[in-house]
């Protein structure tokens, strides 16, 4: 499938892709963040932000914009003992991977930057880079709490990278391709028992569970937020950060939520398909060609699926208490990884005999 943005000269199409990507990158995490504000509040019998608004629309829709403006004005403190350069660039290192992954994620039919033949591999490899930002922040802060948080993050990310990859590998095995666009197309053609069209979420239920739980842990989201456990180690690697650098870390968290939910959507929930086997309709609307209409509807469907996965992440945060460090490690090494290996074996056997 060709990208819709490949029009005319190379420079123009790259420019359009960058604009769309940055636009998505700047809005989707805000939507996820607003959702977290309100959903978490209501699940805790609160109302959440109610005042800040855009024009006559209140209910706190402008809260994150106001917060951003506030973070910009705050003093940017770099501790005297900190490793200044590392400290300064760590938030960027944590943030950039989320932006880079967006290149390969298909949001709709033709709405993607590039259809890499090894898209899954690229996405998972790049998402691991953000760990580097966390470790850099932890080490350079010259703060024992930051360091403890960093060590916990390292242990956790090594433990949960494996189930994440194992869950994705089983999907790749079933689809027979590493390309994210190819996986979406393969899901459209998949028939459960040869009859019922179905996404991979049902045959790959174990893989979906592994992938989702592991992505929660990758993002340091509760109940796997040991690395930033605020009641024990202040705020982990973010303890010494203030102002816009701290805001970058927060943005990285929400962007990570959106990006990992987007990968899960593509791998397990059929990407832009409205229902299993039902692609978004392509009809001409006034002067807009059918391809573009289908692409826009596809983006809407994908966003809906992403936001429902983000909703479940928030729901888990409101519900489950934090795991202890040993429970966390035990869960990964003794449960999730053996389960993932078993899953791959089962899928491989099914693939061969089907």
């Amino acid at each position, binding site marked *: 499938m060709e990208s819709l943005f490949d029009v005319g000269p190379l420079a123009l199409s790259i420019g359009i892709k960058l604009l769309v990507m940055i636009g998505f990158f700047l809005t989707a995490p805000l939507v996820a963040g607003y959702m977290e504000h309100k959903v978490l509040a209501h*699940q805790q*019998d609160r*109302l959440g932000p*109610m005042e800040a608004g855009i024009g006559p629309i209140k209910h706190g829709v402008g809260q994150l914009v106001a917060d951003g403006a506030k973070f910009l004005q705050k003093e940017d403190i770099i501790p005297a003992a900190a490793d200044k350069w590392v400290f300064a660039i760590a938030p960027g290192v944590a943030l950039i991977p989320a932006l880079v992954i967006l290149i390969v994620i298909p949001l709709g039919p033709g709405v993607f930057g590039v259809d890499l033949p090894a898209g899954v591999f690229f996405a998972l490899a790049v998402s691991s880079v953000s760990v580097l930002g966390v470790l850099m922040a932890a080490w350079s802060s010259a703060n024992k709490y930051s360091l403890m948080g960093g060590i916990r993050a390292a242990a956790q990310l090594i433990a949960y990278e494996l189930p994440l990859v194992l869950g994705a590998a089983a999907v790749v095995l079933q689809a027979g391709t590493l390309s994210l666009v190819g996986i979406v197309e393969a899901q459209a053609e998949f028939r459960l028992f040869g009859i019922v069209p179905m996404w991979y979420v049902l045959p790959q239920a174990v893989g979906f569970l592994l992938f989702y739980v592991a992505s929660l842990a990758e993002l340091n989201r509760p109940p796997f937020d040991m690395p930033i456990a605020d009641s024990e180690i202040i705020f982990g690697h973010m303890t010494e950060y203030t102002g816009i650098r701290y805001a970058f870390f927060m943005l990285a968290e929400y962007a990570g939520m959106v990006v990992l939910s987007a990968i899960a959507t593509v791998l397990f929930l059929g990407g832009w398909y409205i229902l299993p086997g039902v692609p978004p309709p392509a009809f001409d609307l006034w002067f807009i060609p059918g391809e573009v209409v289908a692409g826009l509807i596809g983006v809407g469907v994908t966003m809906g699926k992403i936001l429902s996965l983000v909703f479940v992440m928030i*729901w888990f945060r409101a*519900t489950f208490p934090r795991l202890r460090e040993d*429970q966390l490690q*035990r869960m990964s090494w*003794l449960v999730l990884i053996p389960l993932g290996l078993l899953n791959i074996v089962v899928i491989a056997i099914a693939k061969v005999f089907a």
Partner: protein
Amino acid sequence: MPTLPKLPKPPQIGLLKGLGVTLKTMLTPSTTQQYPHVKPALPPRSRGVIALMEENCTVCMLCARECPDWCIYIDSHKEVVPPKEEGARARTRNVLDRFAIDFALCMYCGICVEVCPFDALFWSPEFEYSTYSVRELTHEKEQLRVWMNTVPPPPELDEGADIPKEIEEGLKAARKAAEQAAAAAAPAEPAPGQAQTKAGGAAAGGAAQEEDIHVEAQVDQEVFDQLIAEGKSERVARAKAKAAYVRKEKARIRAERAGEGS
């Protein structure tokens, strides 16, 4: 023997129950009050601020003396009231110059409200009088009088409660007078129409007459002297003598009217 790593128990139904609780909480409306936009519904006896009914204050200083943290400031002077009649003695009257409560000191115990014998101090549920400075929390009588407008009416009595003592005494006196009037009217007026509905009609007639008759109270000298002789105090004797005079006078007028009617 080396201990084997203990496998965690498989996730149980409690995880789903927890999710159910948070989902249910999300779907039920929050109890949060949006305070500056929506005023709280305070119970009528809320202790918000102390209001002063200046007209009722006699500068007796009881409130200021009873206040545990001395936060009530009262200034007054005496004024000579010219005598009503020629040759009588001139009276003096207390005039309130300043009545201030320092709400920075006040601990909202309400002793001043309890102790006021003239119903000049009241609790008001008004609570929005925070200031930027402690000094501004001392409020003068003008502001305290303004707060009087926010004092709610006394709460309704509970169902089946006893009638307040004052009202019950008044009712008792009125019924007694009506009965007496009926007893006085019944033999003097054997009207054929009223005979059938004797009890009801007589009570109604008595009540109607009660409104008509107005007697200026005077001291019945005979009764007064008798009561003094019995050793009653002058005040009690005068009050009882006045009451006796009024009763006698009313009975006389009633008898007169009954005579005219027949």
